[in-house]
């Protein structure tokens, strides 16, 4: 594999989307678990555990989208116009989820809070499901015509394998969010979250096993690179060890390490996905020759070079202050006057 600009940008877009999955993953997960408790106080604690950071986490998606637009405009154009209705639903879900967090605490009435609680939770679940389903479609392959345009239908995107990836994503984020919640809370809610986290881990493991089996059986091209390069099996192994380590650390009460294992699970899953689709970005089924690749869908080398300079200046700074901000808001959540 030759590391040219196109490959670097494939990796960078991957890094941004992985960053999104790791970071927004836990707050989408918290959202999915939000309705599990019906105590106002506990819902507030859950909301405030992600309060200062959810907004920054979502920027990873926005920047990932921008980077895709800039580096691979044809992929951006084909995927976004092709997945039109799915993306509109995703936007609606993301909007409701975002404003619900801000609006909920503004009025004390029970119906008001219930309305925004449902928006927040349903918005989080639908967002996770749609993001996973989109990824599942990229893995399975979508019909692309000779002009590089999407040639399928909305209903065609809802086939079983992509939906399985969608459900697995929901399970993954719920597990990730529950462990994050365990780290950020104390007392009764902490114990409840510990119970939910165990349930979520089981839910995720069932999904992950099912997904692995169906990928090997029905989507052989998604295992092709690892099959041809056996040393890459180490990534799959790392993924399995990361998953196995979650309940282990959790059992010993090392919540922080369990959360890191959960992050490692997401990173290795994304790495496996990227390794196997490379160099395709949209795999065309049934006509693989129409696939959009990192070469036929990319911007000019000059632009990729300029963008790389921008990324090299911007990304380290972003990571530095993001770490500082997580540091400032470390520790258990305490409700105060500024809280949601």
């Amino acid at each position, binding site marked *: 594999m030759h590391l040219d600009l196109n490959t670097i940008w494939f990796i960078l877009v991957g890094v941004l989307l992985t960053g999104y999955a790791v970071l927004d993953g836990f707050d989408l997960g918290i959202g999915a678990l939000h309705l599990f408790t019906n105590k106002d106080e506990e819902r507030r604690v859950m909301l405030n555990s992600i309060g200062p950071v959810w907004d*920054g986490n979502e920027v990873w998606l926005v920047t990932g*989208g*921008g980077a895709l*637009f800039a580096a*691979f405009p044809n992929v951006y154009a084909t995927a976004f116009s092709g997945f039109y209705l799915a993306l509109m639903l995703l936007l609606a879900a993301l909007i409701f989820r975002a404003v619900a967090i*801000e609006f909920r605490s503004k009025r004390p009435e029970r119906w008001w809070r219930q309305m925004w609680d449902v928006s927040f939770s349903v918005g989080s679940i639908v967002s996770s499901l749609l993001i996973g389903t989109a990824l599942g479609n990229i893995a399975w392959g979508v019909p692309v015509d000779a002009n590089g345009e999407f040639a399928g239908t909305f209903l065609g995107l809802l086939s079983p394998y992509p939906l399985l990836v969608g459900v697995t994503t929901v399970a993954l984020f719920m597990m990730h969010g529950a462990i994050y919640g365990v780290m950020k809370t104390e007392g009764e809610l902490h114990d409840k979250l510990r119970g939910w986290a165990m349930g979520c881990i089981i839910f995720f493991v069932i999904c992950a096993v099912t997904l692995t089996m169906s990928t090997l059986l029905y989507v052989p091209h998604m295992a092709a690179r690892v099959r041809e390069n056996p040393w890459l099996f180490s990534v799959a192994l790392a993924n399995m060890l990361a998953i196995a380590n979650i309940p282990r650390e959790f059992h010993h009460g090392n919540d922080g390490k369990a959360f890191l294992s959960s992050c490692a699970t997401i990173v290795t899953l994304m790495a496996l996905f990227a390794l196997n689709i490379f160099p395709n970005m949209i795999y065309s089924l049934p006509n693989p020759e129409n696939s959009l690749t990192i070469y036929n869908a990319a911007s000019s080398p*000059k632009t990729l070079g300029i963008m790389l300079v921008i990324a090299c200046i911007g990304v380290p700074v972003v990571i530095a202050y993001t770490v500082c901000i997580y540091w400032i*808001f470390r520790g258990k959540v305490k409700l105060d006057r500024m809280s949601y």
Partner: protein
Amino acid sequence: MDVLTLSRIQFGATIAFHYIYPPLSIGLGIMLVLMEGAWLKTGNNLYHQMARFWTKVFALTFAIGVATGIVMEFEFGTNWATYSRFVGDVFGSALAAEGIFAFFLESGFLAVLLFGWDKVGRKLHFFSTCMVALGAHFSAVWIVVANSWMQTPAGYHIVGEGMHARAEITEFWQLVFNPSMLDRLFHTICGAWCAGSFLVVSVSAWYLLKGKHLEFARKSLKVGLTVALVSTLLQAVTGHKSAQGLEKNQPAKLAAFEGLYETTSNAPLVLVGWPDEKNEKVIGISAPGMLSFLTHNDFHSPVIGLNEFKPEDRPPVTPSFLFFHGMVGIGFTLIAVASLGFLYFRKGTLHERRWLLWILVFSVLGPQLANQLGWFAAEVGRQPWIVYGLMRTPAGLSAVVKANVVLSSLILFTLIYSLLFAVFIYLLNDKIQHGPDDADLIPSGKLALPTKN
């Protein structure tokens, strides 16, 4: 309706709704920096109370701004895929830069601004407030870079032919500092400062009228009216510069703004009027020679008229003319309102002039309307081009998206945005009625500690 009309309505409606919020974030961002800065400098806790109150309003506008902003980034790809393929190399870079340099900065430090009051010291909190305001301004920079490139493309070349033609970067800095970028950036930012400052002025004037929170209102007015006066005056200057740029770079747009058909020396500036497209003239009052003077500093220089352009290359005259004159009219009214308010405030008699206070209460609508009309004028005036001179708007549409699909998303957004707007107004009103918290007069947590020098 066809895909083109529906997609235009959808983009216009979603961007217009979105654009209620970013100017408020930028403008209130500056107000927060000034208020918190004044608190650090004077130690007067009233400024602390102000910063806390307006931070809450800021959070509300910011949340809706973010939520509706993601829609915009997606819509280029969903509805205008062919345009996205054509400009991705150029336009995408600006959007990605906005994400890296602006959005992360803004949203990261917003956490400290909103939730860090008791967790960090005064200086770090003030620094975070400054970073949020800076991030909001950076965001304006990159989005205006992207839009100005659509108005006055530069630093690119066209590669490929027919369906596969696209613009590629040749000179990055030429692309960034394309001919209209700086003028339009300053004009946009001044418009945002107006939006933020007049909101502060409006709410404070309301408190004075109701006899509530008087000290708070007076201090807020002092900051608000000063920024309002400065930014409305600067707005006239930056607007003038933008119009001079139009004459050089987009003469058809300027001609449409003024309803000027024949190229004439001693070209008149329409003060009040209505374009009569059939007879190719403007009915109304104009100042002879003023348009020539404003664009060339000379009464006798010729200004290019619409007849120099083929009918299919002209922007729609009536809407361009009305949006533009609406914006200018409101702009000058706001200068007058801000000056009067400032004058009587300095004299110390503002609270006696209830008529003026009422005008100040409603003045909040002025910048919002003018900002909307200004962007309408800029975008309608660029027509029939999506990228000026390079690509026509209908050519930019997605090839695979059908009308009924766009219609359903348009209905979806109309419903969601109506709900959002209703809730926004309800919560804003709630916040204003509730007023500043007296508890905020005493800083708590680490903020209560004196700054170390």
